Every structure is written in structure tokens, then in C-alpha cells.
């Protein structure tokens, strides 16, 4: 055991003429703690598996889907699930499973770009707010608060009104709307880093702010960024689905889970499965990213473990 405290006190014991063998109770201390630290984190495992499955589905959909997702086949309109169409078909006879598979691409793509936009703007803003003088950091955070009054969906609808609805406007709008939460989380993390001794030492040594931000602050908030990215991804998936549902997201014919739901609405009485499959897909994706975020948070900050 490389437990330094243990070896020190063992030395003291032998000096006192006590048998140097470890007293029975002592060894299990660290051992118990170790197993607790490595305890399987169910959120992380389940979330990770779900996200992995979605990513794999999206990748597979590039090379193989049961049918062409946009193939209209009037012969099998509104077909029930069968061996040839596992999830059935929609009102145009398009294969539901294929659409859901290709839809996962849309979901991941929108999420990735939106989270990317949010991180690229939010992380520097958060670090800046933590490192600059009082008034400028105050200004950043106030602007941040103001942006919170524009939820992703509202921004996206505004963008849609002005530039026309498209995947791009949806992604950018969702990304911008997610900036505040990024900036806020990163700022509080960066503030903690700024108070650590190595940053104080670097500042005392006359290092300029930019190198400090790059060398000390950024690496130490990466765990926060990862957690926030995962949680934001879930929000982005939700927002994209809602936007597509309203008709302000991905335009047809590109399959999207939200629009599949919207198209299913006229068949709620006759073919409810049309709503169930994309609905479940959305819920599972959001659940996966949320769980992954929670799990990562616990992994990085075990103190919070039982607050989950």
C-alpha cells in the first residue's frame, strides 16, 4: 500500500515496541474506500450505452437501412409492423424503421453543431467572466441573464421567421440559446481554478492572463465542459424535435423524429404507432444524454454522488 499515513504511524508503532503487523482494522479502511470509489456508476453506464447505440445507429444508417428512408411506396401505406417492415410504414408507405435510423443522424448532427456553437461561445465567455475585472464580468453575466429570456425555441422561431426555417437556423438558434448555461457553469468552475495556488503562483510570476487561461484554467474546466456538453445535447435534441414538430426544423424530405411525430398526429386514432416509435426514440435519446451527463458529473465530483 502506498498509503503514506499508514506507513508513518506504523513506524511510530514499532518505535513504541508494538508488533509492527497491521492491526486488523487498519487495512480495510482504504480498501473500503477504494471499492466505493470504483462502484459501478449506473447513470454513466446506462447513459453511455444509450448514446453509443444512437451513434452506432446513425453510423449504420449511412451504409445500410432496411429501405430507402425517403422511398414512397403507395402499395404499403400505413402498413402494420411486420417482418418486412419492423416498425410499419407511414402514410406514404415509407419504412418507419429506416426513417428513425436516418432521423438519428439529424438529431446527432443538430445536437453536435448546437453544442459546438454553445461551447465555442460560452466557454471563452465564462472564462473571461471569471478572469476579468468586476465590471466587465458583471456585464458578461448580465448579458448572459438577458439571453436566458430567449429560450431556444423562441430564438429558432425568430430565426425561422427572418431567414426561413432550415436545419442551419435551428442549429444556430439552439446553440446560441444554450450559451448562457455554458457560460455560467464554466465561470463558476473557472473562478474556483483562479483561486488555486498554482494559478496564484503563475500570476505572481507575472504570467499574462491569456497563457494562464489556456494552460491552467481551460484544462481544469474540461470536465465541466464535458458534463455541460452532454446535458446541453439533451436540451438540443428536445429543441430540435419540438422545432421539427412545429415545422421550423429540418425541412422534408430529410427524416427527423420531430416531424415524424407531427405527421403522425392525424393518425392518432387509426395508427398510434406512428407517434410511438419516434416519440420513444426522442425520449430515449434525451434520457441517454441526461444520464450520461449525470454520470460524468458523479465521476468527476464524487462528493455529489448521493445527490443524484
Amino acid at each position: 500500500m502506498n498509503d503514506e499515513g499508514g506507513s508513518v504511524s506504523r513506524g511510530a508503532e514499532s518505535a513504541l515496541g508494538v508488533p509492527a503487523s497491521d492491526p486488523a482494522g487498519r487495512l480495510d479502511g482504504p480498501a473500503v474506500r477504494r471499492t466505493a470509489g470504483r462502484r459501478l456508476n449506473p447513470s454513466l453506464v446506462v447513459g453511455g450505452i444509450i448514446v453509443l447505440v444512437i451513434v452506432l445507429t446513425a453510423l449504420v444508417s449511412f451504409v445500410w437501412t432496411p429501405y430507402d428512408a425517403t422511398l414512397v411506396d403507395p402499395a404499403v401505406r400505413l402498413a402494420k409492423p411486420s417482418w418486412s417492415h419492423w416498425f410499419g410504414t407511414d402514410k406514404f408507405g415509407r419504412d418507419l424503421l429506416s426513417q428513425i435510423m436516418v432521423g438519428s443522424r439529424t438529431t446527432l448532427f443538430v445536437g453536435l453543431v448546437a453544442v459546438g456553437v454553445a461551447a465555442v461561445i460560452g466557454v471563452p465567455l465564462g472564462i473571461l467572466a471569471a478572469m476579468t475585472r468586476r465590471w466587465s464580468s458583471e456585464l458578461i453575466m448580465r448579458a448572459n441573464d438577458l439571453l436566458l429570456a430567449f429560450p431556444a425555441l423562441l430564438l429558432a422561431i425568430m430565426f425561422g421567421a427572418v431567414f426561413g426555417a432550415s436545419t442551419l437556423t435551428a442549429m444556430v438558434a439552439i446553440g446560441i440559446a444554450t450559451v448562457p448555461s455554458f457560460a455560467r457553469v464554466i465561470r463558476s468552475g473557472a473562478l474556483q481554478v483562479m483561486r488555486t495556488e498554482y494559478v496564484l503562483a503563475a500570476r505572481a510570476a507575472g504570467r499574462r492572463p491569456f497563457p494562464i487561461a489556456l494552460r491552467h484554467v481551460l484544462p481544469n474546466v474540461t470536465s465541466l465542459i464535458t458534463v455541460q456538453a452532454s446535458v446541453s445535447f439533451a436540451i438540443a435534441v428536445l429543441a430540435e424535435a419540438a422545432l421539427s414538430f412545429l415545422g421550423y426544423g429540418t425541412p422534408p424530405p430529410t427524416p427527423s423524429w420531430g416531424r415524424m411525430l407531427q405527421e403522425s398526429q392525424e393518425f392518432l386514432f387509426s395508427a398510434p404507432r406512428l407517434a410511438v416509435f419516434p416519440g420513444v426514440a426522442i425520449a430515449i435519446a434525451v434520457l441517454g444524454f441526461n444520464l450520461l451527463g449525470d454520470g460524468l458529473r458523479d465521476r468527476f465530483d464524487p462528493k455529489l454522488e448521493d445527490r443524484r
Partner: protein
Amino acid sequence: MSALVEEPEVAEQSDVLAVRGLTVSVRDKVLVEDVDLTVGPGERVGLIGESGSGKSLTALSVLGLLPEDVHAKGSVRLAGIDHDLIGADERQLARIRGRDLAMVFQEPMTALNPTMRVGDQIAEAMLIHRTVPNRRAARTAATALLDRVQLPGVARAYPHQLSGGQRQRVVVAIALANDPALLICDEPTTALDVTVQAMVLDLILQGVAARESALLFITHDLAVVATICQRVLVMYGGRVVESGPVHEVFTNPRHRYTEGLLAASDLDSAAHRLPTIPGNVPAAGNFPTGCVFRTRCAHATDICTTTPPWTGSASSGFACHHPAPDLVALETRRSSREVADD
């Protein structure tokens, strides 16, 4: 030597509190083992030990307020209560807490609800147990209690408007509100400025004296025990290693730990360099088998791997294989010589 005169020889049945074989454990770790403890009516008993010795857990087990996952076994009986407190359900315990049994905690800054006026917090203690007829009477009684702890006119204040010492006096007032048979104080002055410690101690003493309440006083401060307690129990590693009248234990310690503790704190002189007990207190639950002190004891031998038997009576004795020499004879000789000299 008034302490000797005051030493109460309490009969077993009339004890206000009787703890028998108390063992507290978390999962597989034993934190407090086989503790016996009695407090007679109106008696003031000190419980001393370093942090991690299990003294606070002992107190919390008596109240049934142990943290989740921590479990107590054994027996805790309170005079006038026809059931054991260990294993009693919340309903039974709630009826006793605050009425027959009250507690003052260590940290006054956080012990009071920040969103409730202090007068209401005191009044609540009486309203819960219906020891006052109505809300107005409770409020009047609360104001009177605040007067008694020398905080007149603060009933409508919020805790944040009071200093630490003032808040602790409010906590004392809450604890004494229903004239409890037993007051447990867990390091009530540790978090306070030295200047206000004496005052809070004094109020506690006056409070228990006026109500003829018994007092179980937990502390690591030997000087405080010496001033306010009649009898003392010394805890180490979750066990009671020595007990007896304060004067006896402090002048004639028999357990090697008590001896070391007294030498390290040295109540009498600061002239020479304070000796310290070698080594560190092991983490809770990681104490050695046999004598819990053996890993730090200069006198330990092979026999110390077995649990030392209790020597002496239930209210006065020690558990050590190699006790310090009994100084009583010497002590009596010296005091008789002093008397003769007069």
C-alpha cells in the same frame, strides 16, 4: 476539597439516564463499543475524549438522532419512560425529545432555522409538547426564557441578527424550555469566542440548577469538565476507558490514556514543555482489537491485544492492563499532612 464532598453515590434505580452496552456501528465498522453510562438526578457528568472517540455518537444515540446508516445497539433507559430508547419508533422518541431529554449542539451558527424568528423557535419547543396552553402563553414563556439567558427583547430577531454566543444562548433556551430531566450538551462552547464561553457555561449551569435537571456534558476541554462536572467518563476509540468523580480521575488517573491526556493538557502548570501522546488517533472504526489505546501506549505489551477488564465499580473505574500507580494513598497522606500543617 468540595468535589469530594459533593460526590454523589447514586443508587442504580434512581438514575435519570442509564446506558448499557451501547454499541454504535456503520455498516461493518464499530464506532462505539459497549459503553455503559449513568447520570443521576441533578448530577452533572462530563464525557471527555478527542474527536473521533465516539462521544458525540454516544450522545446522538441517546436522542435517537444518529445519521442514516449509523445504527445503535444496547440499551438506553430514561427515568419515567417505560420503554428502551434504542429501537423505539420515531413517534415514541419525538415525545421524549425536547421534553424529558434536550440537547445543545456544538455549532450555534447553523443550529437555528434562519427563516424563523428566535422567539418562535423557542415557543415551538413548548407548543410541540403542549407544555403551555396556547400560542400566546408560549410566546410569553419564550420571552421569559430569553430574559433568563440574558437576551431580553430579541424574541422577534432572526438568527442572523445575533452573534454566535447569542445564538447559542437561544439554543440553550430552547433546550431548557420544557424543564428536561436531562440536558445533553455536545461541546456547546467549542465554536464560541473565549470571552463568551464562560457566560454560556454559566447560563447552562444556572439553567440545570434551577430546574434540578441532570447534565451530560461532552467536551474535549478538561478545564471545562473540571469546573462544571461532578463525575467524568473518559472515552477513547469508542470505549469508556476510565470513569469516576472528576477530582479523583484528574488527580489520580489510572488508565494510561487518561494519564497521557492530563499530562498533555496539564491543568496546573505551563512551566515545562507539554508532553504529547505519540501517534495519531486512528480513523473512526479502525481502532485496534483488545485495548484500543495499545498502538499509542508506551506501556503496551502482548496482553494488551486482549480487551482489558473493567476494574472498580460501575461509577468509578478503568479498563487497563497496565494502570498507572494508584496515587490515592499518596494523595491522602499529602492532604492529611496539609491538614496537620494548618
